[in-house]
């Protein structure tokens, strides 16, 4: 019988923090600006420049650490990781090796096969490097230091995951927590969340760990899933052939859907880590931890429970709405304004999700004003607009955050509530269809539908069919 293998996976996740400024200088930490416009002597490694720690970074790290059930080190320190590369202007990265800010935590994940606890080894603060751009046309390389010094938190898990599904669940959970805390937007594609996968295989039942590899350059959940499957297969094949897995760092090529070796352990660098003498130790008081704990937001599971109780939402709705803090916040504010939580939920889960999916957007990117959706729901309630028109208006709310009532008026989408106009239309239809009127009066009640349709057509759909119905019956 063929041997059965188990995959053992641990993750190193880098999360780029959404602080206003960089970790060691006052430059803006924004994404996608003109190259080298957010730089200063500190983040370009000028001689004589000195780093000064951004306190917000410590705060964000504590928030994330507390949310992931970590111990917070009351005394932590920054170390220099020395290596030469042009994206790193000082040729050392300021990171934390010896005394990281958080350690020994865990996250609960949920997969089809049930709940599981993934332990977190440590979390530490560090700075990001710049970006190298290789200009093949000019045969030269350019460096953009805008990203140099952007704060990162690295979250190192224990090797507790066994499947790609668990890995994705862990990452989703981490992402949700970061977004709820507002510490990062965690976009894999844009690089604000990066995951390196440490993977080894061993025979089922074995207690010892196999030799692991580290996979880099994974820019999507799809890439992560494929890389895990590919690497598992590659390692099993080696073992089956009686060969050995080499401890090495591999790079995933998304286009080829395969990986190649970057460097093996033998030529692993000696980073000559030592405490950065330019930075003072980070001393965290009990009071500061208490303050952060008090400020921790309500996370998805508690929020979902409360949505069920407070708004009477079905469990399904509550769990979908709370997957994104932005979505949950919009739901809550809109429901508060219009008093119709289930209807709000339907709009969020139906149209909103449909449009997001269509545009490939993340719920965190929702930007419309809650009162606009509330007003639309109330207009529907008052029958000032029909369902079809409302969907049209909502697309505009999603797209341009339009104010629904004025938009409805401007585009002529308001329902006619003027009884006189409907009466006139009813009379006209009756005059134009004398035979049908006779049929009805003769007992053929089925023809009423046709007449209602005619009136609606005349009203260009902007009348309440119930009202048309009532008026027709009356006049007939």
């Amino acid at each position: 019988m063929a041997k059965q293998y188990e995959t053992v996976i641990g993750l190193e996740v880098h999360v780029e923090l959404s602080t206003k400024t960089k970790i060691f200088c006052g430059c803006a930490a924004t994404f996608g600006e003109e190259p080298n416009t957010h730089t200063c002597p500190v983040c370009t490694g000028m001689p004589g420049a000195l780093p000064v720690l951004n306190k917000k970074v410590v705060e964000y790290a504590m928030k994330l650490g507390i949310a992931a059930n970590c111990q917070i080190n009351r005394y932590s320190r920054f170390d220099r990781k020395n290596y030469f590369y042009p994206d790193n202007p000082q040729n050392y990265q300021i990171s934390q090796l010896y005394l990281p800010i958080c350690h020994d935590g865990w996250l609960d994940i949920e997969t089809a096969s049930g709940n599981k606890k993934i332990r977190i080894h440590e979390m530490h603060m560090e700075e990001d490097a710049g970006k190298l751009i290789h200009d093949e046309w000019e045969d030269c390389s350019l460096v953009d230091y805008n990203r140099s010094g952007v704060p990162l938190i690295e979250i190192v898990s224990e090797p507790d995951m066994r499947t790609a599904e668990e890995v994705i669940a862990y990452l989703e959970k981490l992402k949700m927590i970061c977004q709820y805390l507002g510490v990062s937007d965690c976009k894999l594609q844009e690089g604000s969340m990066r995951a390196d996968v440490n993977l080894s295989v061993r025979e089922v039942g074995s207690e010892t760990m196999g030799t692991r590899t580290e996979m880099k350059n994974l820019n999507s959940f799809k890439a992560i899933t494929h890389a895990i499957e590919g690497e598992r297969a590659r390692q099993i094949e080696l073992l089956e052939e009686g060969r050995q897995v080499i401890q090495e760092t591999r790079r995933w090529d998304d286009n080829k859907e395969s990986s190649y070796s970057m460097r093996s352990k033998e030529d692993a660098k000696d980073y000559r880590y030592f405490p950065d003498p330019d930075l003072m130790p980070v001393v965290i008081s009990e009071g500061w931890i208490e303050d952060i704990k008090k400020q921790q937001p309500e996370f998805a599971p508690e929020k979902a429970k409360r949505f069920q109780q407070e708004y009477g939402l079905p469990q399904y709705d509550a769990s979908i709405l709370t997957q994104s803090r932005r979505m949950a916040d919009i739901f809550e504010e809109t429901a508060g304004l219009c008093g119709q939580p289930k209807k709000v939920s339907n709009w969020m889960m139906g149209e909103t999700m449909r449009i997001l999916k269509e545009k490939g957007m993340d719920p965190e990117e929702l930007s419309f004003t809650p009162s606009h959706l509330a007003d639309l729901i109330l207009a529907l309630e008052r029958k000032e607009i029909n369902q079809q028109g409302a969907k049209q208006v909502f697309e505009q709310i999603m797209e341009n955050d339009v104010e629904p009532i004025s938009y409805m008026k401007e585009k002529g989408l308001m329902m006619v509530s003027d009884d006189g106009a409907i009466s006139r239309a009813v009379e006209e239809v009756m005059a134009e269809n004398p035979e049908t009127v006779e049929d009805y009066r003769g007992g053929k009640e089925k023809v009423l539908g046709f007449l209602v349709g005619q009136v609606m057509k005349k009203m260009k759909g902007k009348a309440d069919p119930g009202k048309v119905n009532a008026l027709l019956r009356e006049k007939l």
Partner: protein
Amino acid sequence: MEEILHMSALELGKSIREGKISVSEAAESCLEQIRRKEPDISAFLFVDEDGLKQRVKEVEEGIRQGRYTSPLAGVPVAVKDNICTRGMKTTCASRMLENFVPQYDAEAVKRLEEAGMIIVGKTNMDEFAMGSTSETSYFQTTKNPWNTKHVPGGSSGGSCAAVSAGEVWMALGSDTGGSIRQPASYCGVTGLKPTYGRVSRYGLIAYASSLDQIGPIGGNVKDCAAFYDVIAGKDEKDASSSPVPVETAVWKEKEDLTGVRIGIPREYLGEGTDPQVKQAIEKAAALMEEHGAFVEWFSLKMTEYVIPAYYIIACAEASSNLERFDGVKYGYRSADVQELHEMYKKSRQEGFGEEVKRRILLGSFVLSSGYYDAYYLKALKTKALIKHELDMAFQKYDCILAPASPSAAPELGTSLKDPLKMYLSDIDTVAVNLAGLPAICLPCGMDSQGLPIGMQLIGDCFQEKKILETAAVYEKLRGSFPVSWKEEM
């Protein structure tokens, strides 16, 4: 003109404020002396004659408008070439930074300019402040103004020689292991190494970050105190800068030293110390004792470990601090290289001098995996023990009296032949840096060759005022010290 040159910096500042001397007269007499002395001394790497005219006008205007009220407003100064000056080359006396022009001013430079002081130029030094003679400079050899066959000391040799030769009233230096005090001693001038964290390191091109400190060099104690007042104090741009308020160094003059407890560490005057140096220190001690001080010999048993601890820590930090000089962003880039690693190697190989490379190698070695615990960590523990021993000493004494070097200035061309011997000559100064203490060095005698001998007064952390006061009383008791260039005038 000569009269101006014989004034102290504070006297000059006063005359400028009172309108007796104009700022341009002061600057002109300074330039004249530079023209006279530089061919022999070579203290300056760069004299900013053109920029000076503009700056003189600006300061004259500022003093008239009351913008500059510092007692040193209008006084010309020199700046060691490892301290960044915006728009003015800052080379660290290295080929690596031969054409480097900083985009910003060091905080100390900013502060002295805000006080209305005038930068005349940049002074020579040991390359990246690594050396004890200023001979490791890529560009030139500075000579001792007392005898041009001798070294001025280092690494702030250019700054001390410039003050000693009367080329400038005051200068900024930096002190990582004695780089202000030892050359001050060799050149017969006064230099203060402040408490670590007292003067911002922002813009000081780092040698060893946990030990580096900028400080003033001048002709006497009071000038140094006034200059210290200008540059000291908390700076948000330097995380190691201390929030402890600066006690103003302007004090009520004391007549004697009653109540001042002075300790002399035996180990600093033992074997290896020139008997003439020992004599000069003992004479100074006797003079202070005579005028009310309590003087006692004591023991600093950790002294034999200060040199290894210092060189391990300093070189470890230096190996990392100097990584940024790689030919990518600024500084020297080797021509004709084909790929990245070749560019790194050649640029650093050609851009750095021998002593710098030696320390980078030493530092890289002690930090490498497998050696970190045995060397670097052990050195840090030793550093803590050295600090503890000195802390204990300050429970008994207000000041520690010690030489700044085991001998007066050696001859040119002798020290670099034996680097280990040169390292060992730092024995009197490095403990102060390891413990982060303030110390002042001022002249206390001459050796038989007519070369000055200096003494250090070391204080507890943030006790600058105490050592300055004590030094000022001693200076008065000692009487005026000769000037190296006076006879020639």
